[in-house]
């Protein structure tokens, strides 16, 4: 779960990290009010969960209230890579002397948390890493012992950060780490961490929380409501489905992320275009399967390929979900079903009674039919 910038900044502020003065606006009137407080010298930032927001024109500067209003008019409703701008963060314009990158994430190779610091903030950190690897300092933080000052000293030293900023940078890094741990984050990041005449300020804020840990953080349930998943994606989340909408016309339902991806790849190989990624997870109930069919159907696909290889998932349960979906929903498109694995025979027996369903034995065969029928 990724938080919107303004949500993340609020948390950063609660942990004592300096952030720019500013407020969230949902209307031109609100933008005007906020901009007036700063004599019109503001930055307007679209609150959407999209990478490269700046390059897409989602971050704009104004030097007067009128200009701020004009920019706001342009930004509200603006479509950035499929995300519609509904909220703007309106902030004071910072006087930036230099920009750092500071963050923590999880390093799967070393099974540790890794602290990252760079004096080349403001850019895409992957780009910096590719072009100037020596400009990205990293330190492993052993999860058993947590963050110690020496980790920070090594990081500061290797990043060639100016010594007069060591103490302030350490302070911010320590607080960021506390957020990383308290919120069970996958990623916490300040980019840019701006050096201003008033000191270091988190000009941007990113906080990605481990979805698996959200059950322990009740206060985040509410925040999640606000984050801009599409309506259809929100519904999928409610049912525990891993769903990502894409641009093709062959709908896919599979169990397991690997199988779902392999199915997408197969659709492509067969000459089609996958309309989505949808993993019903392990041991899906018939309700979940029914919901999955409903979601995919809504998204306007031409055919649906249900590809199940049951381990913890039972084929008979999946078949029951298909039956329920067909009984309760109006589905005008062909459904191709492939069931293998746990309780395969029982599942196939259930499906036998149904019309409008094409049952296949092999995934390659199913993918081919689904692609052909979507043309």
């Amino acid at each position, binding site marked *: 779960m990724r938080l919107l910038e303004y949500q993340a900044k609020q948390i950063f502020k609660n942990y004592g990290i300096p952030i720019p003065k500013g407020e969230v606006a949902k209307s031109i009137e609100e933008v005007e009010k906020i901009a007036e407080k700063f004599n019109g010298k503001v930055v307007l930032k679209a609150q959407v969960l999209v990478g490269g927001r700046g390059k897409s024109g989602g971050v704009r500067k104004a030097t007067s209230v009128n200009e701020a209003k004009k920019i706001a008019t342009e930004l509200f409703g603006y479509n950035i890579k499929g995300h519609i701008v509904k909220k703007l963060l309106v902030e004071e314009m910072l006087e930036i002397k230099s920009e750092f990158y500071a963050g923590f994430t999880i390093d*799967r190779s070393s099974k540790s948390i890794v602290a990252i610091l760079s004096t080349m903030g403001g850019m895409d950190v*992957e780009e910096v890493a590719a072009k100037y690897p020596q400009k990205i300092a990293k330190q492993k933080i052993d999860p058993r012992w947590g963050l110690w000052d020496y980790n920070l000293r090594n990081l500061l030293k290797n990043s060639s950060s100016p010594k007069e900023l060591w103490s302030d940078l350490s302070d911010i890094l320590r607080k960021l780490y506390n957020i990383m741990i308290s919120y069970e984050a996958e990623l916490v990041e300040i980019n840019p961490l701006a050096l201003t005449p008033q000191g270091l300020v988190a000009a941007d804020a990113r906080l990605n929380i481990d979805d698996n*840990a959200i059950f322990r953080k009740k206060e985040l349930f509410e925040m999640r409501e606000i984050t801009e998943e599409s309506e259809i994606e929100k519904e999928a989340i409610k049912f525990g489905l891993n769903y990502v909408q894409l641009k093709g016309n062959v709908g896919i339902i599979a169990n397991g992320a690997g199988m779902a*991806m*392999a199915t997408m790849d197969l659709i492509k190989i067969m000459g089609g275009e996958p309309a989505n*990624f949808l993993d019903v997870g392990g041991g899906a109930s018939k309700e979940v399967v029914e919901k999955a069919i409903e979601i995919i159907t809504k998204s306007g696909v031409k055919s649906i390929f249900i590809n199940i290889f049951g381990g913890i998932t039972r084929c008979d349960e999946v078949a029951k979900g298909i039956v329920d979906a067909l009984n309760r929903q109006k589905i005008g498109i062909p459904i191709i079903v492939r069931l293998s694995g746990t309780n395969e025979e029982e599942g196939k027996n259930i499906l036998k009674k149904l019309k409008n369903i094409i049952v296949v034995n092999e995934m390659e065969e199913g993918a081919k039919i689904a692609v052909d029928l979507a043309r």
Partner: protein
Amino acid sequence: MIFLSIIVDENTKVVVQGITGKQGSFHTQRMLSYGTKIVAGTSPGKGGSEILGIPIYDTIEEAVKESKANTSIIFVPAPFAADAVMEAAEANLSVIVCITEGIPVHDELKFYWKVKEKGAILVGPNCPGIISPGKTHVGIMPTHVFKRGNVGVVSRSGTLTYQISYNLTRLGIGQSTVIGIGGDRITGLSFVEVLEMFEKDEETEVVVMIGEIGGRDEEIAAEFIKDMSKPIVGYIAGLTAPPEKRMGHAGAIVEGGVGSAESKIAALKKSGVEVGKTPMEVAEIVARKMKR
């Protein structure tokens, strides 16, 4: 000399953690049917009773003492699964198979190191377990798709493991050991560790490695494969996954070009690995290799 499969075999004595839960009892029954030696189960508070003829204990400590189990399989729900892994490691079990999906990654960071320190093997979490066809099955796999033979299979994805093993079996090719290392960011075993075991395993002639986008584990494995004597056949899922979209698994995130399917396939090919485009093709490549 007897031919031992890797990690588990017919002498493996299993304790089931969370044996009274829905998944735990269902799969205990299935494993028993396959012939797996299940000697104990745990379910805190229910110690002293039994299920499916298996004695239940409150703690692993007690279960191990009484049953001499050396391996555990975990069906405990995600919020409590980390504790179950820690408990199994503390009780000095040599193999811990964690089926549970959805464990918080910060929990995984902790138990990874506990298991490591204890010198145990952790299979998973978020995995289908491990099977040595005809010997034992410590997992949740659809056992009928496997057949005893000489191909080792290691995979990050549960269902793809079944799919490709099924394709192999259909071509008459059996498996020595099939192991799902799990799809989470933090897994107990890496590809390299399993490849190393297969390389030494006398039962294994060819190895199938099933990867997916995210992380660098396949790239690291590609380096290791350069020094392996046995042929490896690869499969990587996620060629059509758009960058920056979550594909379900915490592990399946394309992180700015690093860990893309293209990068992994290129790395494997560079190490002489033939990579199948579809599960079926993987099986066909293996068939060719086996004939030589």
